[in-house]
């Protein structure tokens, strides 16, 4: 009994001390992973993921608090990339966080706009220009389509319009697999 206790105590002392020292010596600060995750997120800043913007969501993923399938604008592709980065299994977009939509931009009906500036305050990327009491417009090239400006508008003059296909954005379709389309 005594030898057993002595032997195990000896082992425990050595290991405990080594670990305790290492935990101080190799303490980690900061988390470069967040940047990597953030780079994958679409930066729409829409909050559909349940976090106030993409960066907080990235932090949450990195801390293991959030799952990787909560960002609808990033879509399946985004989830796939996250799964890849984190070595996890791909999973479809979580339903409670919304669905993937075609990319749209906000458009302000200039006839109705009363210039209340509420939408300017809501827009996370400063894509709306206009001064108080004056008509506002969305700069389509800057708009991320987050829809955050839609709700605040007191006169409902903001509508989301899907982006039309242009020669620059036209894509070849996925070849149809006529043989095995049935899953």
């Amino acid at each position, binding site marked *: 009994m005594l030898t057993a206790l002595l032997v195990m105590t000896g082992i425990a002392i050595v290991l405990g001390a080594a670990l305790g020292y290492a935990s101080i010596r190799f303490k980690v600060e900061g988390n470069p992973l967040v940047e990597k995750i953030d780079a994958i997120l679409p930066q729409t800043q829409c909050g559909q993921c349940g976090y106030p913007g993409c960066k907080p969501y990235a932090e949450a993923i990195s801390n293991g608090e959030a799952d990787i399938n909560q960002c609808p604008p990033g879509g399946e592709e985004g989830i796939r990339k996250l799964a890849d980065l984190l070595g996890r299994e791909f999973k479809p977009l979580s339903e409670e966080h919304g669905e993937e939509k075609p990319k749209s931009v906000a458009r302000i009906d200039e006839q109705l706009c009363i210039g209340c500036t509420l939408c300017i305050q809501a827009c996370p990327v400063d894509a709306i220009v206009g001064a108080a009491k004056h008509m506002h417009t969305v700069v389509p090239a800057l708009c991320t389509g987050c829809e955050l400006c839609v709700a605040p508008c007191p006169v409902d003059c903001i509508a989301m319009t899907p982006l039309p296909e242009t020669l620059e954005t036209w894509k070849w379709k996925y070849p149809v697999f006529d*043989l*095995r389309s*049935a*899953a």
Partner: protein
Amino acid sequence: MIHSPYIRKPASVQSVMLAVLLALLPGVTAYVVQVASVVVVNLLIATVTALAAEALILMLRKRPVAPALSDLSAVVTAWLVVLCFPPILPWWVTVLGVLIAIVAVKHLYGGLGQNPFNPAMVAYCAMIVAFPSLMSQWPPAGQIDFQTQLDLVLGGARQLDAITGATALDAMRTGLRTSGASVESVLQQSGTFGAVGGRGWEWLALGYFAGGLFLLARRIITWHMPVAFIATLAVVSGIFWLAEPARFAPPLFHLASGGAMLAAFFIVTDPVSGATTPRGKLIFAAGIAVIAYLIRVFGAFPEGIAFAVLLMNLCVPLIDMKTQPVVFGHRGSRP
């Protein structure tokens, strides 16, 4: 909508597989004439099983059946299964083997073209592991009449020891390992040997060789795999043989016996599960030859090619990845 190109060469999977079946015919003929005519019955059983299994699975998966059946790849697999198995197996072993090949190996991975392992070889490995005794009972070439063979295949009594003999490889192994005989004495002593390989079996090797040349001529296979396989097997066995001629059989023996020729042209060359780049093909085939030799000579199984093929199948993704040919315009940009 159909996009360019709008014209195609008149090639099809069906024609490729048909060519493979045709190329097998000389070997099969030699088999029937020299060794055991019952192999025809086995081929029939296997073909029917393969097609039925494939049809069933496709129906279960709600996929169109006709195109997949008519591509004949299942028939190629079935035939290769039969040609690797001993001919006097009870029919249900053949059926089981083909089912493993078609269902477990080919269709679990999604069917034609997607299986990372060679279906016929998995079937062989599975069966030799499961039924080692049945799978090592080979008839002496051309000494049993068709009726007896048929009885053996379709059931009925099996007085095995009386009928079966060792294959050349097996006899060589047992001789060298347990009775301490020398290569020469084994070759002389046994009644089942011809000059090379087993008596009668070398005709099969020749038949497969001829079929292989046909495939080469039709450009269905490239030279890389057969050449690398044969050359490596010859070199490796040659080295051992030269070092100790009494303990190790000569290269010609290794090339002509077992499934070496069948493997060189029909099995190693399976496009689906093998390496695809030119350099990769050389490595793949050479790897099979080396492992097969080691298993034959030092391992626990009489014929190592099937395991060697599976083992190299495992390496295919890595081989392919590491041997990508230099793309046009990238010469010099790579070490």
